[in-house]
């Protein structure tokens, strides 16, 4: 339910989908979000915006290794501080958190114990 109206940044998730033919197609999911909030929670985004590089100028970044579902969960956490974790996605979420340098000690402790 993030408010899209004032969004100033987009995260695009490209996912390879196998069609019946052998070619692969990319399905793109777009998340509209806010630089200021992303910067606070994620050092990755903080660096990205500070660098003044291409993504910062164009207002979007394309991520490959994270699935749209996981991204949805992570953004939920970034915006609200709450996240739902299931057995199936715990590991994936942990890896994504680390990749984006969202460094929340409590969450890490919890995830590690949970996975164990």
């Amino acid at each position, binding site marked *: 339910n993030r408010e899209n109206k004032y969004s100033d940044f987009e995260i695009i998730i490209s996912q390879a989908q196998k069609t019946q033919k052998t070619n692969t197609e990319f399905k793109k999911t777009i998340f509209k979000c806010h630089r200021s909030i992303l910067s606070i929670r994620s050092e990755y985004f903080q660096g990205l915006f500070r660098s*003044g590089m*291409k993504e910062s100028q164009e207002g979007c*970044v394309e*991520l490959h290794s994270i699935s749209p579902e996981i991204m949805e969960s992570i953004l939920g956490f970034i915006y609200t501080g709450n996240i739902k974790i299931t057995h199936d996605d715990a590991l994936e979420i942990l890896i994504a958190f680390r990749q984006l340098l969202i*460094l929340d000690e409590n969450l890490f402790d919890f995830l590690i114990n949970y996975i164990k």
Partner: protein
Amino acid sequence: MSRKMILRVPKFQEPKRMEKSEAQRLWLLLKDAIVEVQHMNASTLSFEELYRSSYSLVIAKRGDILYTGLEEVNNHHTKNLLDKIAQAVDERFLIELNSQWQQYKLQQIMIHDILMYLDRMYVKEPQLKVFDLGMFKWKQNVLIHSQINDRLVRMLLGLIHMERNGEVIDGALMKSLIQMYVDVSLKEKETYKQEFEERFLLATSHFYKSESNLFITNNSCGAYLKKVEIRLIEEEARIKQYLDESTGPKLIKACEDELIANHMQTMIEMETGCRTMIQNDRFNELKLMYRLFQRVENGLVHLKNEFAGYVRNEGHKIVNQPENLKDPNALITSLIEIRNRFEKTLSQSFANNRDFINSVNTAFESFLNENDKLSESLALFIDKKLRGGFKDSNDQEIDVIMNKVILLFRFLSDKDVFKKFYEHYLAKRLLSGRSFSEDLERTMISKFKQECGNQFTSKMEGMFTDMRLSKDALDGFKNYLQTSVEMGKLPKIDMSVRVLTQGFWPTFPPHSCTLPPLLSQYCDLFTKYYCHAHTGRRIIWQTNIGTAEVTFRLPKKTHVLALSTYQMLIMLLFNDAEKLSLKQMAAGTSISFMDIQRSVKPLYSGKYKVLKRTPAVEKSKELSENDIFELNLNLKCKLHRIKFAATSQTDSEPERQHTRQRVDEDRKIEIDAAIVRIMKSRKALIHNDLIVECTKQLSSRFVPQTSMIKKRIENLIEREYLERFPDDRRRYRYLA
């Protein structure tokens, strides 16, 4: 489990296998990007791509390639920069250095951002963090390089020197370059301290050493103080403007050492220095001096000692001035004046500093007790005030003077001597009816009470009670006379009597005299009346301090003479004789010759002469027994009532000695009491301890002489209150 550990054990992430060639490819990609950043062309790069590359390398455990590669790139880059900067000449050097440095810092932030995953997950001690690595390379290859460091410091110090000499320099540039030393320091600003701060402080000390020496020899102390204050303000501003704040205390200390501490003695002793300022009440300059001296160690001690010394000296002069020794009023007035003056100095210049006040008080204590005149002078001073000296002052002024009196009183070590004199003069005021206001008397006494407690003033208050009771007794006596049988037989005189409780009042030296029969009869009547009303009391008549009014009939005119009792007795003798020698007067009245002398003097040598000396001898003032007097029937005086001073206001020497003797008597009793009190609680004590303890107990009233205490101990041994230990003669035991 700590976070670090979790992050370092990527159990759950199976690293993807990565070919060496792939790792090499990723590194080259990053390297190119870093070089672009170093050329300020970052805007076309993709952050995500670069971040992902470094992420992949780290995940694949190829962080080492990345880290060592980065080190090399930085190394190479800073070496290039060195050449570029070193080539710049003169002022361009600082500007070039600064702009390169500012760019370099920005680049290092960007590189850090790209390699954030490396920084977070790979780098561990003692390896430097990515940004610190950048700083270290700059320091190593640029800043502390022989072509840069010395040149930079010299130029910075040169600019600061210029600024101290009044020129304007580029503060922002200074700040940036000096901050660079802080930025490249890895821990505790060590590069800043070693390479810059140390030399800066040295240069500062040098600068102010020569400046202060020169300035103080060519200017007054006041001008120098102002200069110092301005310099200190400037240096404070300098710290804020472009130095690291950690330098602040060190810089200010260096300045204070050179500008203040090294010149304190000079500032105190120089011709325009502290002494002159105190002498001339230069409050503002002293205040500045106080503020500045306060900043250095022991500074205030110097100033305080100088001030206290001056106070002691001034007080000493006043206390020993011959005119003041003769005139108690002038003495006390001058003392109050200097007290006021020094209090003003204390409050206006020395912030009412406790230590200063204490040392001034100590000085007062020392000179006020230099000679034993002060107790009496102070009592006389109050006496004069209370006899009417307060007439023209309002309540507030009176209160101020009284408080000053109390203040001086506080410094007296022999308060008991003062008390005796005060009681003596109070008694005289009350008995001669010369007290100006009972309210003021009571106010003064209540102030002593506040200061020393009930015991100190109980006798004085007793005197007031006696005065009131006497009035009642006298009224009763008058009624009694009217109803008395004997009354009819006696001619009527108006007699007033004051009944004084023995103990409250100072004992006046006993003088005897013969009263005329009529008066004796009245006295007997009063005694009869009083002893009847108050059984068990005894009345002793003290005639020497009374007053009388007699009618003096001249051929043409009649006067009323207000006289002392003795003078009355002498005058009454002339009812039966025309001429009398002093010897005859003494015989006729049984008054001592000395009192005769004192009584007669005002009668023949004052403004109105009721007696004349025959033959008239103008010059000779000394009276001898055989000098003859007769009534002056040619007295010319417009007044009906003529008042004669009974005795001079100041006491004669014998009277004074009498007072002192009584003080000594009282002291013996006090010392006895103190010794017994101490021994009773301690049972046994060594001689010296007893002396010390005894002196301590009595110090609020007077300072007992050791010899006197010894005598009292001997006396108490004789009276069997104490005994010596047989085996140790220095120890005493209390005998219950």
